[in-house]
């Protein structure tokens, strides 16, 4: 009998005494926790995407409570979350300009020519190492769906060999921007309705040979823009989104249709 009782008493006794000591220690070393932190954490989306630059939503909640982060630090939650956070902290929230990520390439399987057929590992980062990817255009979307795999919000779809981002699901968390080896995904203001969907810096003739929907550098948009919102360098037109007034002149005039309005883009693709 003693062979059972002694070990039980020994272990049990040690366990209880350590327990008591630890509970005393926890009172001595008690750290007051800001009650707002928990409330903030509930207000945040909880996606733990890290777009704010802090390690997850808990990290941001701590920074918000300490006053180190602006109330609109959460890009994912947008205005709604910023308002709630401001409520909890008793601050005024400023208006957040909503941004969305856009894939600046429309060269899908029909419109862009291929250099070769890629049958390796389906990851853009690997595919793009093999002489800049299978597409003839070295700036274009590789189409292996690395951004599709990394998107935590299911906002990216692969349509006919290129990635298309759903502008209503996108939360501007920048995960796809970081992962894209071609650097063709960029943040664009949600309210902006004219986007140059091409990143090719090749000369017009080369672009035309590679892809039917690339920017050929004709400068028609630059000449016709009433707001002077275009800049042109390296054979590529770029829009200054602050100057653009959504007049849609460029969208209508662009001969290759590489400037598009993302709002009715679906109808264009189909």
């Amino acid at each position, binding site marked *: 009998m003693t062979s059972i009782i002694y070990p039980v008493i*020994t272990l049990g006794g040690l366990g209880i005494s350590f327990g008591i*000591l630890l509970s005393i220690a926890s009172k001595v070393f*008690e750290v007051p926790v800001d009650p707002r932190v928990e409330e903030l954490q509930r207000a945040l989306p909880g996606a733990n995407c890290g777009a704010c630059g802090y390690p997850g939503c808990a990290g941001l909640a701590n920074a918000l409570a300490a006053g180190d982060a602006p109330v609109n630090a959460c890009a994912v939650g947008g205005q709604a979350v910023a308002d709630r956070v401001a409520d909890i902290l008793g601050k005024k929230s400023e208006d957040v300009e909503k941004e969305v990520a856009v894939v600046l390439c429309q060269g899908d399987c029909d419109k862009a020519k291929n250099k070769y057929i890629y049958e390796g590992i389906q990851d853009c980062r690997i595919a793009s190492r093999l002489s800049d990817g299978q597409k003839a255009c070295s700036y274009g979307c590789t189409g292996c769906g690395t951004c599709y795999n990394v998107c935590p919000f299911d906002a990216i779809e692969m349509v006919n060999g290129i990635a298309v981002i759903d502008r209503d699901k996108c939360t501007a968390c920048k995960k796809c921007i970081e992962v894209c080896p071609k650097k063709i995904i960029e943040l664009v203001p949600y309210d902006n309705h004219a986007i140059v969907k091409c990143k090719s810096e090749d000369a017009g003739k080369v672009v035309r040979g590679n892809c039917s929907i690339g920017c050929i550098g004709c400068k028609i948009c630059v000449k016709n823009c009433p707001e002077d919102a275009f800049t042109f360098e390296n054979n590529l037109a770029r829009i200054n989104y602050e100057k653009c007034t959504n007049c849609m002149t460029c969208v209508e005039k662009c001969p290759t249709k590489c400037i598009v309005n993302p709002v009715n883009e679906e109808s264009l693709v189909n």
Partner: protein
Amino acid sequence: MGSIFTILVSTIFVNNYVFAKFLGICPFLGVSSKMETSTGMGVAVTFVTTLASIVTFIIQKYILDVLGLEYLQTIVFILVIAALVQFVEMAIKKISPTLYNALGVYLPLITTNCIVLGVAILNIQEKYTLIETIFSAVGASLGFFLALVLMAGLREKMETADIPEALSGFPITLIATGLMSIAFAGFAGLV
């Protein structure tokens, strides 16, 4: 006095727990990326190991040996270590929240740092006295501290070095660890 010096030199250099016995590799690799966190971890491990060795020595000698319960050694020692780690965690959270955040998950993982348990068990096996136990524990954790700080220094340099992509990160760290333990093998025969 001679034996204490021997124990210190032996545990720090000759039988370094990381490089010669290959114990505590997880925290060694996990926390050695920055000098600041590695010193914090070193201090925490030193504290836990020393205290755990003293407590386990007393428990072994006055409870387990007396009652003939030597077979409970492992479980009792782990109980002691777990309680101590909890205590250290609370203390660090109070004293230095920065260090607490920097150590992160590796702090509670001191519980499963095999150096702590390894030192406690080896002390009993070597039939050390209480004084020798304390010095062996301090030596072992100083050895771990040394390994950690050396590695952190190397890794901070490696941050800026031009390392082939396939090797950067943990692979190069493991290679460096291997080279370092070969270097530490040079101490063999010192004691």
